[in-house]
């Protein structure tokens, strides 16, 4: 089948739905392509609350957020259970496959909203056996929340990412004994609110500078060895065996850009590099959400999507967008920035992550402090208002974070 749309959106999660809405609101014909049989992405399995505070000014569960945003988005042409196999960025065309065959889809502008994948436990290169009973937090969440099955009866959580902490609470509520959450870094990997609401409220211990160093069990997991780490080195004398039948790994998310690898400018973290219009290195290709960088909140991904959608609609009508005028260079103290290039035409909310915890962090543009953040942590994004009226955002923009003691 051959199709042609002003704007094609790849991915129907929080960012993709935002992008479809943004494009539609700005008068473009929109096609949404989704691999699963419905929109919503990971929202569908996130039955906990905490979504929507920015977009809807109320606290919603994942499915509620999905439903409310679906209503807001309204009807959009969509191809479900459809996988894009190849994109020709020169001809503005792509090939996709579904149960009805092959589809050739031409676009005026394209929005990549393909989300992220979980880093699997197996990627950590931890010694031992390879039994059943090892899950990523997202997979365990899918089993419990969507399929009504428990992964096991006694669980250890490795990594203190948000989904790991949320699953620690979820499993506890379902009667699974959660022995503890083990984090190799000296600071937690997830949001402070999740430490309070998911761990402290349920008496689940969080062990910092401690991690799993060995897996035991032939058929099904029988236990893990954990130990403390000092300067990244495991301490033999602190080794401890924990009997458990379930290991849930929450050890990071990776932007999922397999489809465009080598064709779109990407950073070393595999995220797509964009400017403040959410535009990639192609004039008419945009990206938003977790395939740009891993966000703390779903709401941020949606807001980015709406922006990408609006700009994609403009380009698809043959209008020109402003050119890139400035480039951010990341200096000391910063690990992630959500955009690299600035057109410096209007204020832009840039998200950054510091590279280590700082009691007080000053955020600096070209050496000049513009913001102070109390208790800055890599796990909590910092929002910076990149306002071209306040700062010079043309040419080279050096961004740094410096820790100051109280």
């Amino acid at each position, binding site marked *: 089948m051959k199709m042609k749309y002003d704007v094609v959106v790849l991915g129907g999660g929080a960012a993709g739905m935002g992008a479809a809405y943004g494009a539609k609101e700005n008068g473009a014909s929109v096609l949404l392509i989704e691999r699963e049989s419905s929109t919503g992405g990971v929202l569908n399995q996130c039955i906990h609350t905490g979504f929507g505070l920015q977009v809807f000014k109320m606290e919603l569960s994942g499915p509620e957020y999905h439903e409310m945003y679906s209503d807001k988005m309204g009807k959009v042409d969509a191809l479900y259970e459809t996988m894009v196999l190849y994109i020709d960025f020169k001809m503005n065309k792509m090939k996709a496959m*579904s149960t009805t065959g092959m589809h050739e889809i031409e676009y005026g502008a394209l929005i990549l909203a393909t989300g992220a994948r979980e880093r699997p436990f197996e990627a950590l290169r931890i010694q031992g056996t390879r039994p*059943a009973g090892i*899950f*990523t937090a997202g997979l365990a969440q899918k089993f419990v929340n969507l399929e009504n099955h428990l992964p*096991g009866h006694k669980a250890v959580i490795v990594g203190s990412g948000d989904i790991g902490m949320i699953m620690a609470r979820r499993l506890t509520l379902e009667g699974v004994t959660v022995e503890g959450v083990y984090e190799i870094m000296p600071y937690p990997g997830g949001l402070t609110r999740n430490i309070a609401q998911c761990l402290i409220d349920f008496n689940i211990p969080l062990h910092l500078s401690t991690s799993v160093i060995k897996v035991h069990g032939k058929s099904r997991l029988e236990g893990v060895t954990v130990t403390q780490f000092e300067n990244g080195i495991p301490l033999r004398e602190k080794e401890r065996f924990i009997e458990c039948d379930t290991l849930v790994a929450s050890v990071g998310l990776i932007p999922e850009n397999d489809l465009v690898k080598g064709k779109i400018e990407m950073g070393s973290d595999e995220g797509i590099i964009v400017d403040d219009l959410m535009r990639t290195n192609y004039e008419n290709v945009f990206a938003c959400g977790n395939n740009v960088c891993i966000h703390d909140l779903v709401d941020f991904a949606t807001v980015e999507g709406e922006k990408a959608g609006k700009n994609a609609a403009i380009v698809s009508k043959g209008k020109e967008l402003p050119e890139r005028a400035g480039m951010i260079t990341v200096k000391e103290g910063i690990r992630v920035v959500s955009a690299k290039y600035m057109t410096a035409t209007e204020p832009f909310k840039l998200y950054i992550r510091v590279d280590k915890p700082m009691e007080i962090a000053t955020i600096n543009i070209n050496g000049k402090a513009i913001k102070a953040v109390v208790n800055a942590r890599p796990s909590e994004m910092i929002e910076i208002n990149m306002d071209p009226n306040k700062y010079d955002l043309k040419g080279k923009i050096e961004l740094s974070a410096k820790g100051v003691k109280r």
Partner: protein
Amino acid sequence: MKVGIIGAGVVGTLIARELTRYEDVEVEIFEKLPDVGWGVTKANSGVIHAGYDDEPESVRARYCVHGNEMYTSLSQELGFQFKRVGSLVVAFQQEDLHVLESLLESGIKNGVKGLKILSKYDSLQLEPNLSKEVLSSLWAPTAGIVGPWEVAQAASENAVKNGAKLHLSTKVNSIKKDSTIKLETDKGTFELDFVINASGLWADEIAQSAGVKVTPLHPRRGEYILLDQPNVVKTVVFPVPSKGGKGILVLPTIHDTILLGPTSEDLPPSYKERTETTQEGLSRIIDNAKKLVPAINLSKSIRTFAGLRPENEIKDFVIIKSDEMVNIVATRSPGLTSAPAIAEDVVSWISSKKSLKQRKTFDPHRKPIPRPYEMNDDEREALIRSNPSFGRVICRCNKVTEGEVLEAIRRGAKTLDGVKLRTTAMFGRCQGSFCTVNIMKIMKKELGEEFSEIEKNLPASKIVDGVAR
């Protein structure tokens, strides 16, 4: 004549297939694991060696070069992937250069074709990510790669199609001989006229239970790291060999990932199931692989694993033939490469000994599971039109469709690993975190099993346990 084969690895299944070429031969394969190719077969580098490093007079030299040649037609007949990517043995020290010369010399004696010593410049032209410290290398264009378990799957499917019977999860406990041979298994006793022992790590124990004396085996553990860093090398890259064997390699797999390993650690004979990885082993792989190819990026690791290969003191295959039994012992490296040649040789010996006649109805062909991702648009369109499930992608990392998963189940996959090793679903960078549930749904529907009954691989390897309240 009733022939029993113990072990459904590459050697056992290829022998089974060879035997089904003959009239009046009933072939029964006994495998103690729940699937084919899960023992020694699953646990090696997947390299079809060229055959330059086996001592010219050894048994393995004879089989390796011939086995390598056979893989071209075998892969076409049996429909498994095989790529002659070639191999490089890389020398970094002045004193390694004479090793290359002696490998070249034994390669020529063994009849290996196309061997060539390459200069530093040519080595780097061929493999630009090699360490710049390379001085010279030995190029062997006939070396190749396969998914070893796929060879066993293909051979067993073809053998079964030609009349063989496959008994999975059936462990042979002992062999008794009187007028016939009695195989005592945990699923009952089987009476046979001839037995072939292709039981890998257990071949010494099986031989002894039948009263045949062989050099005892011990497991040699090889640990590996799998990387999602396609194309960092395009050929099989070896260091110069040492006493420990061929060394730690960097190579592409047939599924476009990169494999680093193996280590080579001799374990006591009682450790025949100790496939755990070790910190020391994994560190050694990293140190050695980085020396060969500094560009490897360990943040792209997707899995580590270890396999055990059978080793004996004489470091050579031992094949003992008698009137009622053939024992194939110590199928160490290059066992995978040699397997087709061993099968051909053993079966031609049996056929002349027992005056067997070739059967006209033997069908040497087995069709692979259709793989839409590898097809062109017209082929995909036609396949999806005939069966829409081939248009629904289940595993996004490796683009495996529902149709492929269904076909894998119909061809005998009963576990998640059975599906994984037939389709590559759950084999990619997310290691199944996205697709496991959807694959279990297909298994539930197709096999009539509940989620709580589905296993990862071995008995008692349940995935989920209990119901949410």
